[in-house]
């Protein structure tokens, strides 16, 4: 009851940065409210990642090593997490708001009798209550939300907190996964990789995002070039994803992902509220749009009014000189 459990999502056998952000915050909160912080890793190589969890503040790491967790399927993950939650018996469970987490959060809460504060921008935990602020109405408003339920789940938007290390000496507890496949009800047929990206969009320091203004393959080539020069991940608006020019995994916004890089390029994006909801926490926003009245300029740090097909070749050449 007097601890915070952090579920750490894994991608490519590495703990996701957004999970380490959540763990770093949990460590601070735990220190202030006098609660121990524990972590859970569910992955075939869980034990190898435990030291990373210790370094970021987990005193105990529950490792559930089973290859079934290496590709996402909700039923086993819910079963595995329920077991760890029972063992840890925490006040709150904190996790990064990834698509994988969003898929299990509701069902897991019902199974373990937990309240949920989903997709929060900030949170605090005491033994009496858990409080958070979460964006609503396409991030037009922030809602202060509270729960006094004995067990509360919190999923944290990526980029809400900085990753920081603590000096924690920790233990590892291996937990067996006993799952009856017959109860599965669902089978994973296939994973279709839509991006060959090396940089994970939700964790990137630089994002180059394309909108409908990028128009065609030649525009995409210019965007790709800017991304490769700046080491950026590629994002996209819904309108340009609909054209098929960019994959849906690249979509940023209310339907898509939330990003908060140091530097965000919005190329040919109008700045609809549902897009801005996913990127307005970026530190520096550069907008390139030929319409001087486009709403994206209301959130841009630096706005370039003009044709991206004229601006990008010049910008790419200039940045290449500086960065190489």
């Amino acid at each position, binding site marked *: 009851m007097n601890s915070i459990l952090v579920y750490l999502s894994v991608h490519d056998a590495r703990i996701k940065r957004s999970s380490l952000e959540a763990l770093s915050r949990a460590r601070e909160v735990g220190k202030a409210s006098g609660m121990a912080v524990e972590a859970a890793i569910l992955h075939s190589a869980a034990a190898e990642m435990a030291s990373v969890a210790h370094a970021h503040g987990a005193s105990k790491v529950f490792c559930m090593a089973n290859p079934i967790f290496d590709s996402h399927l909700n039923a086993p993950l819910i079963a595995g997490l329920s077991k760890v939650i029972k063992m840890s018996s925490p006040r709150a469970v904190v996790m990064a708001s990834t698509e994988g987490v969003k*898929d299990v959060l509701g069902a897991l809460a019902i199974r373990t009798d937990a*309240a949920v504060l989903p997709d929060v921008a900030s949170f605090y935990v005491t033994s009496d209550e858990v409080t958070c602020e979460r964006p609503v109405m396409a991030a037009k408003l922030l809602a202060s939300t509270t729960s006094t339920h004995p067990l509360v789940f919190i999923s944290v938007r990526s980029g809400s907190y900085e990753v920081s290390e603590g000096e924690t000496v920790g233990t590892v507890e291996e937990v067996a996964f006993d799952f009856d496949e017959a109860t599965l009800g*669902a089978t994973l047929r296939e994973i279709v990789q839509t991006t060959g990206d090396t940089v994970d969009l939700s964790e990137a320091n630089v994002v180059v995002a394309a909108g409908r203004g990028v128009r065609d393959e030649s525009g995409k080539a210019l965007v790709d070039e800017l991304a490769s020069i700046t080491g950026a991940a590629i994002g996209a608006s819904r309108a340009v994803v609909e054209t098929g020019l960019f994959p849906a995994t690249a979509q940023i916004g209310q339907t898509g992902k939330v990003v908060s890089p140091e530097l965000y390029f919005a190329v040919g994006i109008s700045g609809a509220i549902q897009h801005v909801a996913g990127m307005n926490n970026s530190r520096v926003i550069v907008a390139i749009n030929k319409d*001087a009245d486009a709403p994206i300029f209301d959130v841009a740090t630096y706005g370039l009014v003009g044709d991206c097909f004229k601006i990008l070749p010049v910008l790419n050449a200039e940045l290449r000189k500086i960065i190489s």
Partner: protein
Amino acid sequence: MKFCVCIKQVPDVQASVQTGRMVLNAYDASAVEEALVVNEGTDDVVDLVLIGPSSATETIRKALAMGASNATHIVVESLGGLDSHAIAHILADHFASHEYDAILTGKQSQDSDSGLAGSMLAELLGIPFATNAVGLKAEGEDLVVTRQGDSGQEIVALKTPCLVTCSNDMNNPRIPSLKGIMGAKRKQIPNKEAASVSALTDVSKSFSPPGREAGVKWEGEAEELVSQLVSKLQNEAGVL
């Protein structure tokens, strides 16, 4: 497949001023559309259920006009105190006496963006589910779902009965035809009381976050624009 789609009426977040205009949640509209497409050419029903105030009838009629079969209106005059947990329990009570091959919901509501009610409902009913679907196909007894995951699309086969939450990336919902609108007007929409439930979370206040300030904006030739930008990125923002 016998479908039931859970729909919600939400404020139009797109409206720049708070107009109070209410619309069918965009994600739910995609769920209705997808059920209609999967059932095209069959006699299988696509039913609807909505929890909301009496005034939400217009939203139900809109979804009926798209081509849905029948709707139930669970009347709750104010959704204010109900969180996803409460909504899922009200819906679970409804489905205790209604059987379907598949229940569809939007992946989230455009207003609260919680994205929980669907998967909570599935767990309460003890049926398999998938969230954030961008594609749906009936295959014998199975419903094959393509869902948008973190780094790609995952294709999952669910045994029916099952539940799927739908993304608006799934399709473009149809505009109701005149015939559809006229037909929807004539349909009876039975009202029902909500089961008594409790919320586990509480919104104490909502407020406008400190907005970003618009920065500088330049017009001119590409060369000029780029040199201004690069200089700012290096000297002011320190990101290069």
